[in-house]
């Protein structure tokens, strides 16, 4: 139904565009007046007035219709004599009624349900009809209004600009609200988690074993269980593992990426650049899961072999293998971005340096890199957040056990990996185990935020502005 309506609104708007355009043309010719805008703006004006109010109404209606119908139906069912003790049972009855209406319910149907289903059908009909009527009323009203405006030769260009500005504003508002929504959903679930687990036990605990938390309901925890739970959610091993693997990855990615960026920007001939830059960027297009099995099946066992030959114990899933492969994955980000920022340093600065007799490498080291530093730091930070957020490689190559270790040859785990581990399979939504995933997400988010803030401050402080 909605699709048909949207289709009708679109067709109607488009035809109004041509109508408005030709109408204003004839007005201007017939009455010999100078229009306040080009005819096409009058067309746009009609289109916007015809479509936006109707579409907004449709959206709002579709959001609220199910909620209103549901409350009405549940009330009707209650009046019919249906008995439910809490919200869940009410929901169940409502779903049954809906299924009966759609003909997909195969259980026993008693009189209460049948009556309610009939009422449901009645309301659905009523709502749909009134929706259609109201939409057409809105369209007619707004079209009459805008046609009248047009006949009075309004400043259609300015009005269109205002409406478009409003549309753009709404778009950015949606982006911001979505972000806020995500943050708040993280926050609320985390608060539930922290009502069971002390936040300090979480932040400073050194033991992570959420599988122990098989209690269903926070309220039914016994004292003994609580003691057990208390030290099952220690965050330290996870943040240590995350930082450790990210650190190894950066050790690989930053020097190689930066140096290859410098080579591409300063030394490579146009021909070499044209061939090698896309090749490096292909690295960024390889799915991370491919890197993951490369790390798990090739690099990990290789390290173990080498380690055995040297007489070291190397776990087949090691932080080293995961970090190394992650670093390789990140190289193109650092390389490509630093190449771009180095390229954007003006040639005049290089000329100035050459003119006092500096060599190419002196110029790069002392003039070009400092001038490009904010951009380079930016690219490194992007790489760091990539490394922290990366999941697949770690799941496959670094292991799942939360070891608190600084030995790169042992297996370790990261925050993102644990979130995956917690949320795969069937979940009880109110168990602390599940909620801990939200707490982890929130902590990760805050950590990244702090990192970004520090970096921005650093960039501001050390930037050498060249324009």
């Amino acid at each position, binding site marked *: 139904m909605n699709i048909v309506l949207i289709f009708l609104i679109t067709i109607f708007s488009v035809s109004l565009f041509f109508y408005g355009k030709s109408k204003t043309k004839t007005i201007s010719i017939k009455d010999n007046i100078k229009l306040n805008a080009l005819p096409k703006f009058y067309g746009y004006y009609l289109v916007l007035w015809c479509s936006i109010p109707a579409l907004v109404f449709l959206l709002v209606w579709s959001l609220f219709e199910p909620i209103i119908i549901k409350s009405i139906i549940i009330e009707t069912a209650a009046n019919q004599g249906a008995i439910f003790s809490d919200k869940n049972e009410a929901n169940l009855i409502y779903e049954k009624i809906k299924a009966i209406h759609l003909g997909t319910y195969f259980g026993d149907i008693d009189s209460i349900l049948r009556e309610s289903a009939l009422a449901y059908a009645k309301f659905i009909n009523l709502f749909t009809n009134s929706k259609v009527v109201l939409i057409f009323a809105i369209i007619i009203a707004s079209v009459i209004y805008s046609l009248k405006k047009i006949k009075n030769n309004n400043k259609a260009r300015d009005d269109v600009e205002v409406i478009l500005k409003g549309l753009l504003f709404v778009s950015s508002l949606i982006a911001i609200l979505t972000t806020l929504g995500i943050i708040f959903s993280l926050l609320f679930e985390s608060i539930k988690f922290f009502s069971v687990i002390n936040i300090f036990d979480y932040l400073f605990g050194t033991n992570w074993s959420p599988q122990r938390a098989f209690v269903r309901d926070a309220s039914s925890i016994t004292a003994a269980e609580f003691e057990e739970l208390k030290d099952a959610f220690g965050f330290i091993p996870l943040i240590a593992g995350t930082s450790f693997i990210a650190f190894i990855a950066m050790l690989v990615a930053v020097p190689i990426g930066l140096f290859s960026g410098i080579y591409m920007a300063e030394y490579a001939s146009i021909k070499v650049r044209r061939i090698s830059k896309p090749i490096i960027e292909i690295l960024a297009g390889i799915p991370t899961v491919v890197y993951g099995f490369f790390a798990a099946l090739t690099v990990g066992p290789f390290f173990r072999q080498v380690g055995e030959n040297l007489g070291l114990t190397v776990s087949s899933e090691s932080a080293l293998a995961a970090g190394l492969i992650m670093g390789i994955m990140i190289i193109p980000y650092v390389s490509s971005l630093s190449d771009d920022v180095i390229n954007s340093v003006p040639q*005049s*600065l290089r000329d*100035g340096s*050459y003119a*006092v*007799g500096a060599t190419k490498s002196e110029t790069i080291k002392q*003039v070009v890199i400092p*001038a490009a530093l904010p951009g380079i730091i930016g690219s490194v930070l992007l790489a760091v957040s990539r490394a922290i957020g990366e999941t697949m490689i770690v799941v496959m190559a670094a292991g799942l056990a939360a070891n608190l270790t600084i030995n790169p040859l042992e297996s370790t785990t990261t925050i993102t990996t644990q979130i995956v581990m917690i949320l795969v399979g069937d979940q009880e939504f109110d168990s602390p185990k599940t909620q801990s995933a939200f707490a982890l997400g929130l902590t990760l988010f805050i950590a990244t935020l702090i990192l970004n803030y520090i970096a921005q401050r650093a960039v501001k402080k050390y930037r*050498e502005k060249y*324009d």
Partner: protein
Amino acid sequence: MSNVKIKSKNLNVYYGDKQALFDVNLDLNEKEVTALIGPSGCGKSTFIRCINRMNDVIDICKVTGNIEMDGININDKDLDVVSLRERVGMVFQKPNPFPKSIYDNISYGPKIHGKGETKSELDQIVENSLKKSALWEEVKDRLEEPGTSLSGGQQQRLCIARAISVNPEVILMDEPCSALDPIATAKIEELIDELKKTYTIVIVTHSMAQAVRVSQKTGFFHLGKLIEVGKTEKIFKNPDNKMTQDYITGRFG
């Protein structure tokens, strides 16, 4: 008549297939200002960029012929470009201070060439260079501020100070005043007058008046050829060539 410092012989420059300079023979006298004039794209800048081998930076650029400085061909492939540029400084069209402090802008050159090993020696070089470029009084209390925070005219004098800091023999100036207002330009011209006591100066300019004011010798370029060269007075009062006459009287260019 002073000594000839730099002598170009049959100098040809090519950018890819395009020839930018044709058999230029030009003598530059020591401790004198030589002005190069001519319409845009005539090869003036290309010529001075040959003197400190800045054209090396451009991949497709090829230079043939000789440029002798104190009798030594500086267009020789085996010549050490770094020490050449130490002897031949350059100031560019648009002021291009490094995004560093005023102090670092000037100490950059000396440090690279290993001059001024102690802090006090370096301080002395910075102070002298700034004094010679008539900037010292304006910036002596804020040497740690970025060079880019100065005004356009000050930036250009900073760039001159940077060129002076390595104690060169020749200073090349590529339209040094084209981005500056008349007052800043007057200051730079005054400075050039002062600097010519110590340095050999070559200045490319689009302003005829400026050429008259600052130079002793003038060369007129057109379409990559050196049309006429002589004492500035003569070139502007009584040129031999009809084309020079037309250019300086504003009939083309």
